[in-house]
C-alpha cells in the first residue's frame, strides 16, 4: 500500500512538524522546500498525497499545481492545500478541480493524520473497484 506523503512548504519547522506527525502515523514523508523541489520529486516518480502550502516565495502553491498539470505530473496524486485563514484565493480560478481538500493552518496533529489516512485510502482504492 502506498503510504507516501509530500509536504511542500518553505518553512523548515512546518516541514519538520509534519515529518514527526507522519512518523508517528508510520507514513513515508518526502519534504520539498519549494514548488521547484516538489516538481523534481514528481519527475523522479513520486506519487501520493501532497500537502501544498499556498503562500511561498517565487513559485506559490497554485503555480506549482499549474506546472504539475502542464507537465503531466498530476495523475496518481491527491493534493490538499495548506492555507492560512483568508489568504487570497484569486489565483485559484480553474485550478480547484485539482484540489481535493483545504487544511487550515495551524492544524491539530490528529486531524492531519485522519485526513492523510483518508486520502491515502482513496488513492490506494483501484479506480475499477470504485466504479464497481
Amino acid at each position: 500500500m502506498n503510504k507516501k506523503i509530500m509536504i511542500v512548504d518553505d518553512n523548515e519547522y512546518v516541514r519538520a512538524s509534519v515529518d514527526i506527525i507522519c512518523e508517528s502515523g508510520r507514513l513515508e514523508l518526502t519534504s520539498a522546500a519549494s514548488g521547484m523541489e516538489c516538481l523534481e520529486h514528481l519527475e523522479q516518480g513520486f506519487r501520493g498525497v501532497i500537502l501544498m502550502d499556498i503562500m511561498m516565495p517565487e513559485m506559490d502553491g497554485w503555480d506549482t499545481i499549474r506546472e504539475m498539470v502542464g507537465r503531466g505530473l498530476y495523475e496518481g496524486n491527491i493534493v490538499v492545500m495548506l492555507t492560512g485563514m483568508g489568504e487570497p484565493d484569486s489565483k485559484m480560478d480553474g485550478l480547484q478541480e485539482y484540489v481535493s481538500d483545504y487544511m487550515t493552518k495551524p492544524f491539530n496533529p490528529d486531524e492531519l493524520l485522519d485526513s492523510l489516512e483518508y486520502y491515502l485510502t482513496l488513492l490506494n482504492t483501484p479506480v475499477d473497484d470504485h466504479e464497481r
Partner: protein
Amino acid sequence: MNHLKMATEKVPILLLITAVAIAFVMMVANRLVLEQIREEAVRQATRQQESSMAAFWEQASRRGNLFHIEDGRMILGDYYVLNGSNEIPDRIFHITGSRATIFMGDTRIATNVMKADGTRAIGTKLTGPAYDTVFRQGMRYRGSADILGIPYFTAYDPVRDASGKVIGALFVGVKQSEYLARYKGIALKITAINGTLAAIFVLFAVLLILNRRQSEREIRTQLLFQQHLLDTIPSPIFSKDALGRYTLCNKAFQSYVGLTREELIGKSVFELWPEELAQRYYDMDREIMEATGTQIYESQVCYADGSLRDVMFHKASFRDEHGTPGGLVGVILDITERKAAEKERSLMEAQRHRSRMMESLMIQLNHDLNTPLTPLFALLPMIRRKVEDAGVDRMLEICQQCVNQIQGLAGKSFDLVRISSERPRLLPVNLAVAADSAMGDVAEALAERGVICCNAIDPELKVLGSAEQLTLLFKNLLSNAARYAAQNGKVVLSATGWEDEVVVSVRDDGVGLDREHLNLIFDEFYKADSARHDLTTQGLGLAICKRIVTNHDGRIWAESPGPGLGTTIFFTLKGDGSGDAFPALYDI
C-alpha cells in the same frame, strides 16, 4: 455711457428746434413774397384804372368834347344828355371790366355801380377824399376809395365846362374784393403748400425723434436684459476698454471687489488698486490685448469679505472693426469647492490605499503568525501525550492555551480588517444554510459545554448578503453563545420578518448582561466583566458581527432581562424580495 446718454438726449431737441425754425423761416418768406405779389397786384389794378379812364374819355369824345349843364342836366357836346344815359359806363365795363360812373356835380347820373338792392346807384353822392380832391382841389384822384361802403381801386377825373369850372367827374374802378379774389386764391394755395411742407418737416422731425426714442428704449431694454443676465451669473464678470478702464461688471464682480458699479465703471486699475497690484493687472491685461486669444490661469484672491478663494481667470481680448485692440472681457471662476473636492478625493484615495495596504499587511502578518504557530499547534499535543509528569503537563497545557490565544487573535484581527476594507456584493443567500455551516464550525466548542444549538430558521428563507460574511457572523455569535450559555444549556437561532427586512435572533440561556453593557459589547476589545479574565477570548467577536451587519445595511443590538437570565442578540438583514415562504415555519 454718460457721454452717450447726454448726446442722445440733446439730439432730438436740436432736431426739433431746427425743424421749427425752418418752418418759421418758410412762413415768413411766404408772407413776404405774398406781400410783394399783392403790392404788384394793387399797382396793376391802379394801372388798369388809368387805361380804363383813358377808354372812358375816348368813348366820351366820340359824343362830343365839351360838357355843360343845362336845365339841371349834363350835356356832352351839343345835345348828348348824360343823365340816365348808362350806355357809356356799360360799354366801359364791357371793354375793360371796370365799373364806370358819370357825376354831375357830386351826384351819380349814369353808372353801373350797383347798390345793395341790385339797382344802379343813380342819384347817390360822391364823398370822402375823392370828393375833396376832385371838387375842392380840382385835381385827379387815384387810389382806394369806398363807394357805398365797399372798397374799390378807383380813378376820378374832374369834368370841366368851357370855362374850366369843375362841373362833374368821371369814375372808373373795380371792387378790390373782386380784383384781389384771384390773388387770394393763389396766396391761399401757396400758403397751403408752404404750410404743409413746414408741417411735414416738423412731423418728420417728431417722427424721427419718436423713432429714436423707441430705438433707445429697445437698446435700454436690451442693455437691462444683458445686465440682468450678467448679474444672475454667480461668477464675477468684467470688461475693460483698450485703455484698461472698466466698462462693465456684474453683481458677483462688485461683491468680489467690494465696490459699486458706479465706483468701478470708467476707472482704471491704477485708480482702484494699490500701485503694485494695479501694475501687475495692467501688465497681464496688456499681454492679452496685444496677443489675441484667451488667457487662462489659476490664482488665489482675497474677496472683499476677507475670504481667500482659489479662482481661475478666463480672459479674452477683442478688436474693433479696424482690427485695433478694443479691450478685454474676463470671467473669474471660483474653484475653491472643486479644489476642496479634489483634496477630499485624494484624501479618500489615500485612505483606500492605506486600507488596502493594511489588508495586505494583515494577510502577511496572519500568514507569518500562522506559519510558526503550525509546528507549535501540531507538536504540543504530541508532547503532552508523551509526558507522564502532571506538573509538566500543566505547563504544556498553559503553553497550548497561549498558542490558541495567539492564533485566535490573529484570525479575528484579520477578519475585522478584511470585512472592513470593502463592502461585499449582496446576493440572495440561504440564511439557514449559512447558520448550519457556522454550527458545524463551532460544534466542538458547543459540545464541550453540552450546549444544544437549535436552528429554527426557515430553510427556504433567503436574504441579500455575502454567504461568507453571514457564516462568519453566525460563527462569532455561536462561539459567544457556546462560551456564555448555561452548562448543558440551549441556543436558539430564529428569523422573523417581512419582504424587505428580516430580524434574526440568537438566544442563549446563559450569564446574561447588565443594562450598562448592552451597547458596549459591540466595541472592539470590549469585554463584559464575566469575560474580562477569560484568556481564550479576544473581545473582537461582536465587533466583527457589528461590521458585518453594517456591511449589510442592517442594525445589531442585544437584549437581556438581566444577569443570569440569558442574552439575545438581534440583527436585521434585507430580504431578497421573494419573501413568501418563511412565516410557514412559525405556523407549525
